C-alpha cells in the first residue's frame, strides 16, 4: 500500500531547478530514507509532501503529489494536510512554553478543549515518544530547559499528538549526540508499526540501520530508489556506489 505517489514532480526556486522530474511511490508503514550530498534536494522534496514549501519565496511546483490517492496540491486544505502529515525538523524547535503546552498545542489547534482529553493525549504522545518517564514530573516546566535529545523527542511527541498518518523527519538526529541518536532510532523502529516515516539523513549508516527503502538523490534527481539492503549491498548505479562507499559527497 502506498501513502505517497509522486509523479513528474518539478520544483523551481526562482530560476533554480531544484527537483527534476521526480517519480516515486512511498510505502505505508515503512521507513523510507532520503540520502545524498547536501544541496541535492532532499529537504525540498520532503517539504513538498506537506506543502511547507508554500511559504518559501519564489518556489514553483509542477507535477503530481498524491496522498492516499488525493491530490495534495488540489482542493485539500493545507492545515488538514499538515495535520495528517507531521513534520520533525533538523534543529529541535520546541515552542517557548511548558512541555504540556507544547504537546497540547496541536490538539488544541484542531479543536480539542477538554482538559481530560488533552491530559490523555499528552500522556500518550509522550509515552509513544518514549519520554514520558523522563518528563512526567516536569510537564509544567519550560521545554527550553530540556537537553537537545529530549527536546527532539518532545518535538516527535508534539508531532504525534495530532495523530498524523505520516511523519516527515528532516535530519532529526544531526544536531544530537550518539546516545540521543540511538534512542531516536530505536523509537523510529518502534513507531513504524503505526506510522509511515520518511526520514532525510546525512548519515548512511543510519539509513542502513533503520530504513526499509532508500532513495539516493543527486543534483535534484533520484538516481536510485530501492530496498535499503539491496542498495547498500548491490547498488545498481555507479554514482550510488561512489556515494555510499564514500568516494564523493
Amino acid at each position, binding site marked *: 500500500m502506498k501513502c505517497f505517489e509522486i509523479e513528474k514532480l518539478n520544483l523551481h526556486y526562482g530560476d533554480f531547478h531544484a527537483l527534476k522530474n521526480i517519480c516515486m511511490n512511498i510505502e505505508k508503514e515503512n521507513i523510507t530514507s532520503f540520502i545524498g550530498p547536501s544541496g541535492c534536494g532532499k529537504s525540498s522534496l520532503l517539504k513538498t509532501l506537506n506543502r511547507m514549501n508554500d511559504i518559501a*519565496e519564489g518556489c514553483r511546483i509542477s507535477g503530481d503529489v498524491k496522498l492516499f490517492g488525493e491530490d495534495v496540491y488540489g482542493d485539500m486544505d493545507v492545515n488538514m494536510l499538515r495535520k495528517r502529515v507531521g513534520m520533525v525538523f533538523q534543529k529541535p524547535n520546541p515552542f517557548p512554553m511548558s512541555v504540556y503546552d507544547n504537546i497540547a*498545542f496541536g490538539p488544541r489547534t484542531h479543536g480539542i478543549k477538554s482538559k481530560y482529553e488533552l491530559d490523555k493525549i499528552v500522556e500518550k504522545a509522550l509515552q509513544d515518544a518514549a519520554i514520558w518517564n523522563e518528563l512526567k514530573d516536569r510537564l509544567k516546566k519550560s521545554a527550553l530547559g530540556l537537553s537537545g535529545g529530549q527536546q527532539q523527542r518532545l518535538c516527535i511527541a508534539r508531532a504525534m499528538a495530532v495523530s498524523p498518518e505520516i511523519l516527515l523527519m528532516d535530519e532529526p538526529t544531526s544536531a544530537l549526540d550518539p546516545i540521543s541518536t540511538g534512542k531516536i532510532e530505536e523509537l523510529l523502529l518502534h513507531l513504524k508499526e503505526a506510522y509511515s516515516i520518511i526520514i532525510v539523513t546525512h548519515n548512511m549508516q543510519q539509513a542502513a540501520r533503520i530504513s526499509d527503502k532508500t532513495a539516493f538523490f543527486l543534483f535534484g534527481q533520484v538516481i536510485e530508489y530501492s530496498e535499503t539492503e539491496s542498495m547498500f549491498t548491490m547498488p545498481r548505479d555507479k554514482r550510488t556506489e561512489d556515494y555510499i562507499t564514500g568516494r564523493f559527497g
Partner: protein
Amino acid sequence: MKLKNKFYERIMAMLCWSAALSSVLALLFIVGFILVKGLPHIKPSLFSAAYSSDNVSLMPALVSTIIMTFMSILLAVPLGMFAAIYLVEYAGRGTLRANKSVMLIRITAETLSGIPSIVYGLFGLLFFVSFLDWKFSMLAGAFTLAIMILPLIMRSSEEALLAVPDMYREGAFGLGAGKLRTVFRIVLPSAMPGILAGIILATGRIVGETAALVYTAGTVAQIPKNPMQSARTLSVHMYALSGEGLHVNEGYATAVVLLVMVIILNIASAKSAKKLAGGA
C-alpha cells in the same frame, strides 16, 4: 615596541574607564542634586487633593500623569503592535512589491520618530484642539502623545517580532496551525518581552513630555473629571512652577516624585519582562 604597545593599551583602558566613570558621576550628580534640593520640601501638604495658588499640591498632576499615560498607551499600543504584525508577519513575506511598501512604511515611521515633540504639540493644537474643537483636553493630549510614541511602539514591536526565530513559525505551521493562530499563539507571546520594553520606553517619554502637552492638554492643575477637561502632568506642573518662579522649591520636590515614579516604572518593567521571558 612591545613596551610602547602596552603603554597605549593602558592609556586606552584608562580613557574608557574615565568615560564610564564620568557618565555614572553625571547621573549620580543630577539625582543627588535633585534629592538635596527637593527632599527637604516634600511636605504632606504637597499631596493634598486640590491645588491652590498658596498650596501648589502636586497630587492633581500626579493623578493626571497616570491617566494621561494610560490613555496614550491604550491608543498607541494596539495600533503600533498590529501595524508591526502586519509588516513582519504579512507584508514582509512575499513579493518584492510588498517589500517596497514595507520599506515605505518603515521610512515614514523612522521620519516621524525624528520629529521634535513641539511639532507634535503644534499639530495637536491645530488639529485636535482647534479643528476638531476638543479644546485643551486630556483627550487632545493623549491623541497627540499617542501619535508621538506610535513610531517607537511600532519599531520596537517590529524588532521583537523579527527576533522570533522562524523555526517556531515552521513548528506551528507543521502541526496544521493557520497563520492567525501561529501569529497570536506562538509568535506574539515570544515577542512580548521586547514589545513590553518598547511600551516602557514610550511610557518614559510620556511621563517626561511637556512641549507636546502644553499646547494640547493645557496646564490646568486639577484632577480631570472627564477626558474633555484640561489637566497638567507632573512634567508640565514642574515646567509651570519653575516658569512662574514663585514655587521653585516645590518644583524640586515635584522632580523628586517624578524621579521616584520613573525608577519604580523601570524596576517594574525589568521585573515583568524577566517574568514574561522566564515563564514563556
